[in-house]
């Protein structure tokens, strides 16, 4: 059953990817700006520019370019970066772990914070604590992630400089990572100086990304919990003699999470999208930061590669979401 679901999803991923590739391809050739001219610089002669154009295949008809591009894509080849002159795949794999780590860390923060807020509001229903969490949700939702980033830099990086505000790890520490996931790897290899350094640099960007999502989770989970708390089985739990906290945390939460997971998952894709700006703000060496550089430099192969990579991440995420439903809601398991 689950196998069939996965297979179907994978099959559907192909047209989606084709669409993404097509849109990126067209968009990048419609917007103004000549990548070759930028690359060659102001001193280049027209002959040199023509030669480079030929080298990258940019002098051929559009359809032919697209066809060649698709052929490469199918083989997992994103071409060569115009500015960095390295294979795009290599560049992406170098940066991808940083973005994955940041996104997952932010997601964990958002989920933890969101659940804690919703549970607190439900537990202290009708009291000041509930109004406080409502206020926080409204605020967290109203301020976008990049603005949170700027606020954190200003307050915790400049006014009260307690946390570093750029990079991924202290440059004076030597750490060669096999996986690119610094946080996890340094922890398991016992290099705690690296771990702490990485942690202190990931907290602020992750928190910036997490706060709006935490607010959304808190809000939806709270209303979902309120509904669940009205159910007969919660009444029975009370009559069994369970305390209110236990009822909220164990008897109600799991039921209330089902609708929240759907929303969280969708919002997570927005969070991943948000990494582009937040990474830029914190000079965090991830995929998003590279994407902005690529756009500034009109590095077509790199932009295409990054966008396709993001598309792949989104598709994989959505697949994961659907599979989680079954785990949380036993009624869907035997569909």
């Amino acid at each position, binding site marked *: 059953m689950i196998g069939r679901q996965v297979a179907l999803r994978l099959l559907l991923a192909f047209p989606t990817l084709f669409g993404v590739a097509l849109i990126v391809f067209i968009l990048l050739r419609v917007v103004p700006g000549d990548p070759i001219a930028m690359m060659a610089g102001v001193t280049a002669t027209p002959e040199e520019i023509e030669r480079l154009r030929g080298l990258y295949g940019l002098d051929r008809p559009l359809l032919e370019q697209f066809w060649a591009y698709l052929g490469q894509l199918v083989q997992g080849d994103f071409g060569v970066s115009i500015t960095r002159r390295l294979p795009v795949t290599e560049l992406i794999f170098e940066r991808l772990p940083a973005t994955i780590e940041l996104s997952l860390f932010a997601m964990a923060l958002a989920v933890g914070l969101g659940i804690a807020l919703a549970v607190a509001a439900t537990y202290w229903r009708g009291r000041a604590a509930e109004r406080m969490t409502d206020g926080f949700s409204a605020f967290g939702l109203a301020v976008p992630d990049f603005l949170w980033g700027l606020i954190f830099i200003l307050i915790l990086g400049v006014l009260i400089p307690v946390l570093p505000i750029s990079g991924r790890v202290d440059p004076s520490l030597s750490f060669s990572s096999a996986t690119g996931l610094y946080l996890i790897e340094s922890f398991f290899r016992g290099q705690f100086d690296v771990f702490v350094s990485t942690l202190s640099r990931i907290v602020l960007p992750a928190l910036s990304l997490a706060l709006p999502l935490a607010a959304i989770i808190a809000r939806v989970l709270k209303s979902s919990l309120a509904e669940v708390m009205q*159910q*007969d*089985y919660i*009444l*029975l*739990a*009370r*009559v*069994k*003699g*369970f*305390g209110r906290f236990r009822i909220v945390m164990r*008897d109600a939460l*799991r*039921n209330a999470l089902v609708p929240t997971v759907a929303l969280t998952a969708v919002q997570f894709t927005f969070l991943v999208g948000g990494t582009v700006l937040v990474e830029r703000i914190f000079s965090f060496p991830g995929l998003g930061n590279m994407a902005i550089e690529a756009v500034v430099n009109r590095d077509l192969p790199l932009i295409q590669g990054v966008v396709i990579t993001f598309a792949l991440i989104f598709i994989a995420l959505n697949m994961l979401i659907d599979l989680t439903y079954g785990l*949380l*809601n*036993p*009624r869907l398991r035997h569909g």
Partner: protein
Amino acid sequence: MNDMLAIEALRITIAGRNVLRDVSLAVPQGHVHGLVGESGAGKTMVARAVLGILPAAARVISGHIAFDGAEITHMSERERRALLGRGIALIPQDPMTALNPAFRIEHQIVDVLRHHFGLGRTAARAQALELMHQVHIRAPERVLRQFPHELSGGMRQRVLIAIAFACRPKLIIADEPSTALDVTVQRQVLRLIKHLQARENTAVLFVTHNLGVVAKICDTMTVLHAGRVVEEGSVEACFERPAHAYTRALMAATPRYDQPAAALAPVPEALSRDLADEATAWDARHGAA
């Protein structure tokens, strides 16, 4: 005889309106007491008052509820939690919604045992299995592993009965436990409750609108109308010589197993009017809060 539940002149209002007007009743140990009335008569309010789960707008104005000789009317949340599930248990009305859809049956029986007796996982599991046998569930091992949505209504009600009897409480509140089931299952469930109650010598407050059910399993009964007790006594006495016209009217409105074809008569309008007037008069005497 030792009264497990004694309610004395209980008066409850919701948003200032009287819903229970000095209700008194007693359930001795080992007895099944029927609490009968139409919907809105206040039966469920009595049950909820005993369990301490009244709606937020409800106020206990006066009166007492005693469980096993001890006053529980205004007990603290903490004390009540120690009592609920262990001393007093509930068999809820609707088996389709009373089990938590996210947890396996085993979890829902075991949790109350572990909570009140601090049993280990294995001991609690063995107990749960034993309880499943007692409520006559076939293939109990399999059922324990199942989720509520995989069971029929009758099976779920058996599970709920097992949960209610799990900690061997002294008093069980049965809130229309058979109303949501079809007739054949209804009879099995009633027989099961009666059987377990007799074996454990449990006192049961049996809330129902169905006099036929009362005749089958109750020893004593109270008839409520508009939050007032209009009739009380042993089931035989009430059925043979109903003192109040309303009890007679209810009987005429109840289908009988032995005379399924007999015509049913609704409660006469004049009687309803009289009863409503009496309730208004009561409110006038006691101040309509």
